[in-house]
């Protein structure tokens, strides 16, 4: 097998390969070190960090759905301080490329976490979660409204000293509008998508299966939506680096995102199903490229050939 160049460049962020892991599905990374060589991955995005530790939502927090799951964890996390002190040194020792996923209830909260991270060189990039559907305040408020998102991103950009990723919500009518708002106000990279708001019902009790009532849908069920959104944003913003996220299970799913226009991907819920999957996908992508005569994985990005859409005709 000829060697394939797996490296990808997302603005100033260089990754050794296009396989990263998605926030909230990979813990703080360390939990996976038994199953995956963390240094073999493009990057890992850690569980969403807030300024202060957060307990999250009361259970039940999850339920399985067809080809996926709903979750309303409520952003339980150890807080940025504990992360930097207790998790980051070990991640660094294991050679992981770390993306700090962060969130807050207010603009000031977001800025405070980002300022706390400062110029920490062991954090490769900061990912703003403006799209969590599972908290009463914050998150979604920004993700749904291009104007509010723009203001937030501009404020965070002013204090951020690492590359800034903005993670978009799919729970919008026009993904390009929020993508543009993020990019126009200083996002270096976009990641999409976060979970889609869903509802599952326990028929006997006639109650929602999730304590928070609604939850975020993830897994293979959402992949076509995610691929479509990546494609739309890629068309509208040809230069912006994109992480594609949503329902990735197999090598072919990664390639599909790359063709649609993602420069790299993040593997999410599938990590629960098979904790070794991310490392397997790195190999899988190399094999796929070799088998298809691609010497550089980045050559695949945005190679979708679309047919012209013809107007319907009547009989």
């Amino acid at each position: 097998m000829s060697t394939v160049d797996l490296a990808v460049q997302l603005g100033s962020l260089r990754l050794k390969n296009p396989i990263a892991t998605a926030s909230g599905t990979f813990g703080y990374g360390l939990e996976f070190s038994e199953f995956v060589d963390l240094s073999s991955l493009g990057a890992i995005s850690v569980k969403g960090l807030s300024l202060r530790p957060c307990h999250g939502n009361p259970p039940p927090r999850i339920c399985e759905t067809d080809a996926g799951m709903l979750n309303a964890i409520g952003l339980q996390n150890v807080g940025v301080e504990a992360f930097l002190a207790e998790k980051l040194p070990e991640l660094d020792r294991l050679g992981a490329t770390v993306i700090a996923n962060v969130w807050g209830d207010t603009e000031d909260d977001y800025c405070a976490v980002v300022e706390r991270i400062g110029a920490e060189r062991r954090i490769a990039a900061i990912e703003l979660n403006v799209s969590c559907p599972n908290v009463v305040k914050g998150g979604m408020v920004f993700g749904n409204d291009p104007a509010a998102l723009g203001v937030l991103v501009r404020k965070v950009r002013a204090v951020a000293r690492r590359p800034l990723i903005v993670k978009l919500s799919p729970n919008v009518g026009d993904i390009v509008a929020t993508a543009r708002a993020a990019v126009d106000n200083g996002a270096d990279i976009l990641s999409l998508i976060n979970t889609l708001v869903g509802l599952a019902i326990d028929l006997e009790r006639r109650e929602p299966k999730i304590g928070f009532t609604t939850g975020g849908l993830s897994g293979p069920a959402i992949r076509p939506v995610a691929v479509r959104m990546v494609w739309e944003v890629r068309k509208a913003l040809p230069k912006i680096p994109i992480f594609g996220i949503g329902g990735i299970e197999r090598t072919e799913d990664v390639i599909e995102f790359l063709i649609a226009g993602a420069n790299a991907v993040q593997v999410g819920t599938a990590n629960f199903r098979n904790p070794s999957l991310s490392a397997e996908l790195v190999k899988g992508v190399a094999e796929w490229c070799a088998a298809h005569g691609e010497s550089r994985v980045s050559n695949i990005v945005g190679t979708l050939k679309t047919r012209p859409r013809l107007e319907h005709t009547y009989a």
Partner: protein
Amino acid sequence: MAVNETLRVLRTLRYDAGHFSLFLQAGTIGPQAQPGNFAMLQAGDGLRPYLRRAFSIADVTTWRGVPAIEFVMKVVGVGTEMLGRFSEGTPVPVLGPLGIPFPIGDLEPGDRVALVAGGIGLAPLVLLARRLSEKGIEADLFYGGRNESDVLKRADFERLLGSHHCRYASDDGSIGRHGKVTELFEGALAAGIGFRRVYACGPVPMFRALARILEEGKIDASFAFESEMACGFGVCLGCVAPTADGRFATICREGPCLPPSAIDWSRL
């Protein structure tokens, strides 16, 4: 250390009312397993069921000379239904052993403990009974179910613990005492038996009643909790239970074996 490996089905043994034992090759998981540990099993390679399912490692034994792990399961939905239909040789992805086991390291010969099981909650207590008998610890089993078909593996328990140490209860009186297992256990306490510790696994109503009895009697205990799980190793934060100190604890990583005093029963 948890291992992610594929183990083949050695044998499926069916009992009444949708219960069965699934014997898998022990792999590297079996030799590491301690009582109270569990494993996450993938039922088939399709998208339904999508997530792995959690099962207690019920026993570490052999089948026809091959080292085996035994799971005891009850069919309740799509995953358990599929696992029950797997034939000999079917490969099953297994992640384990997982979770905090029952605390037994501090027990000494001469100690007497109680095992309280409700329904399919017997599963983690089989390996526990085996380890306790190896250590020479005297243990009494209190095991209840709705009816006789719910009270499984009695012969194993009776062999490991001695039949005079095994007491049963059923809701319909078809086996043992007519009534709740907690009443059976209270009867033993009333008769003056003192227990160094109580190990329990069963449904939440049983846990609630037992937790109250144990608190009143100031008896040390470890309960093997259940919860819906997506990952089984502490990363999804989906399996939590409210704790007495006002947080949420992951059942898969901080548990499943926890003292009942750690749980905030009013919020569970």
